[in-house]
């Protein structure tokens, strides 16, 4: 299933899919959209990526955080050390001198974690209402009005939970199905 057009296009399109899906999520409150649709759209980008590049490549590129760490150098303060580490880590895929001296840490983001986060977010968003003395799941809004996002409130948190859950589930199914 590897065609050059799709392979090139999907690399450019993945961020677009992500941004659009988040936009759909926020937009859901007043216009068609919402967490469910947003999550589906967000995952579709990755499905096409899996179809062209395979599961392993997708996992490596998007679901693995590669962190470099180092011991605190002599005569450096802790704050300076942190800053240094942050700078090295933020240079994405750039070659760093003395590659060998870095301690590598790999964090994997499994789809199950995303599902769990979504469920957790949705379940806990109701607690805010409970703490303010109302029944569980009572919606609370802030007074702000942000363009695109609208009025942020606990329902947005809930919807974000739906988004993450759907996103995670579709990814999980895709990865399992596409695994050789």
């Amino acid at each position, binding site marked *: 299933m590897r065609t050059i057009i799709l392979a090139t296009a999907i690399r450019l399109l993945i961020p677009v899919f992500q941004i659009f899906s988040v936009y759909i999520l926020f937009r859901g409150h007043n*216009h068609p*959209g*919402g967490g469910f649709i947003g999550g*589906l759209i967000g995952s579709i980008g990755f499905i096409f990526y899996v179809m062209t590049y395979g599961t392993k490549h997708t996992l490596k590129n998007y679901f693995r955080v590669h962190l470099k760490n180092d011991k605190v150098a002599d005569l450096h303060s802790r704050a300076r050390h942190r800053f240094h580490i942050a700078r090295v880590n933020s240079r994405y895929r750039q070659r760093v001198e003395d590659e060998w001296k870095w301690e590598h840490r790999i964090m994997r983001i499994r789809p199950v974690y995303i599902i769990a986060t979504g469920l957790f977010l*949705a379940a806990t968003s109701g607690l805010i209402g409970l703490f303010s003395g109302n029944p569980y799941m009572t919606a609370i809004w802030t007074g702000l009005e942000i363009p695109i996002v609208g009025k942020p409130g606990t329902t947005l948190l809930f919807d974000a*939970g739906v988004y993450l859950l759907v996103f995670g*589930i579709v990814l999980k199914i895709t990865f399992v199905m596409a695994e050789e």
Partner: protein
Amino acid sequence: MLYFILASLIYAFIAPFVHRAAGKYGIAVQAGVPLVLFVYFATFLPDVQKGEVYTEIYNWVPSLGVQLYFYLDGLALLFTLLISGFGTLVMYYASQYLKDDAGLGRLYMYLTLFMVAMLGLVTAGNLVTVFICWELTSITSYLLIGHTHEKETARQSALQALLVTGLGGMALMAGFVLLGIAGDSYTIPELLTRNDLITHSSLYLPMLILILLGAFTKSAQFPFHFWLPNAMAAPTPVSAYLHSATMVKAGIYLLARLSPALSGPDVWHFTLLVIGTTTALLGAFLALQNSDLKAILAYTTVSALGLLVSLIGLGTDAAIQSMVVFLLAHALYKGGLFMVAGNIDHAAGTREYPLLNGLHKQMRFTGIAAMLAALSMAGVLPFIGFIAKELLYEAKAASSYIILALSFMVSVAYVAVATIMGYRIFWHNRSEPTKLKHQGQVTMAYPPLILGICALVFGLMPGHFVAPILGQAASATLGETIDFELSLWHGFTPVLWLSVLTILAGIFLYSVLQKKREPIAILQKLYANGPNKLYFVLLNGLQRGALHLTATIQNGYLRLYIASIILTQVALLLYTIWYNSPTLQLQQKINLLQDVLFHEWLLILLVLPAIYMLLKTTSRLTAIATLSIIGYTASLLYYLFGAPDIAATQLLIETLTVVIFVLVLHKLPRFQYLTHAHRRIKFVVISVLFGATMTYVLLLVKQFPLISNLKEYYGQNAYLLGKGKNIVNVILIDFRAFDTLGEMTVLAVAAIGIFALLRLRMDKEEKA
């Protein structure tokens, strides 16, 4: 109170990380959490001792009458102090006992979780919260018993405890629902005042049976007592905490709590008395047959729980007073003795008491702790156990002499066991002292020592420390305020002579036991066929039955699964239609056809060739693509009729289905028909039947318009209350958010299920 409980709940999940990060000093935090709770609950003492009740109410699901209701009276406070105080000691003890265990962090988490669940259970003022916490204690108990999950016995015992208490929990839930209906409320304080209403209800008997099932399974009453000795597979700190002091007392707590609401009819008193006394005798008898220290303690715990139940069953003022005193005394000495048994196991590597001799030189502090606890257990003078036994005898003597005689026998057995625990192992120098793997650790002897000293101090000065709170607990159990005074010395009453006689008889029984150690053959046979055997027979039968059923219904042909699902639905629908026999007015519907617009016709016409293609094609890819034409058409129809959200969802789902199908397409075998055409007819019949039924039902539905103001309500309030213009979305994430949460949970579980199923398949292929 909510904040304290919730904070500890959240802490429970952080506990392993704290353990890992803080290392040796982490115990200060781990034991600090129960200690803080203990101090917090202790601040309620002055008010509660005056007879006040502290309540805190949060609405949870108001429409169902579910509240987060904290109700703290004397009984609840007594239990919270026991739970949190014991929690502190057990956390410390666990840190010493399992010093080198890799799973210690996990154990802290489960212990804290259990403590929170237990605290929630005893402070809950709403039946629903009681039930939730009840189940949580069952689950955490399962995790704790199975701590050493590498061992099969541990896993099996954990599952057994979960199944027995879980089944009891199910019965309890049904009982609570009946209680809620009969008492017309789910809040406990209201139910407590409605004794007449509840006991005269026609639901009383089934309700009582169900609630008692729950309480008896939890508190290991006969015939459900077998899980408790098996649960001794847990590490000793867990046994000391859950299976002597707290969790098994949850059933007692429930009976005591609901006693004002349920007591009165003879069946309540009679059942509790009979079951309680039987359990007490049986437990005491079985304890003497065993030689494993933890098994002995487990059976005496079963027996003590039986005594408590029988005292609640008696229900007189004196009985309830002795119940609360005995509850406290038992928690103190039994928890201590369990820790002593753990220390011995840790140091000597065995728990068989015939192998243990003269340990006092090597484990002096443990020995002293054991002696203190054993003296309290035997009911020797300055200890609280003595007061408990005096009261017990008084209460039983007031009812009937048969019951008194039975209690006497149980107490004699306790004295014998106490002699074994407190004297035989440590101070009896008959032969060479047992060689230990390592010297007794002083740190591990502190917790039981503290408990033993508590038993002594409470016994010496009962009026100062424990009488006020115990009095309030007894009042709460009785449902009326009573005068409650405790004193150590009652004078030379007949009961005192009976106590002396008990001790003498107990020591005599001990000396008889020392001489004769062979198990009795007939009894062994009886034990082998006891309820424990029945449990395994039932469990195996269930598994085999499930296997057969699955093999018949789910035989691996997907088409048959679908056919059976559809046929069931069609049958149910047709039955309802036949039963109600509504008439369908077709004439009116045909007129409606004229209103269909041209582009709508076009969409429908698009479906027809797709269906034709679908039936003719022999390629899976074509089939799935043509199927999606139908889906897309449906989504366009949704859009035309003003449901853009559903249209978008349908569109995306169709796309995803096709894409995911393509991913697995190459793994499937070639598509071909293996059956004859006339055999396939039956699937056509099923499809047509289903389609026809659904059409008929839909036409009917349109004919009888639903009278409901839901539509108006949502339309008007979506923006006013939900602050959103997209009604569908507002309903999903705000008005009906609870439903959505449920669906999300189902989805997450389904995802895990899919993963597990496919993984199973892959593992099989790898092996093959």
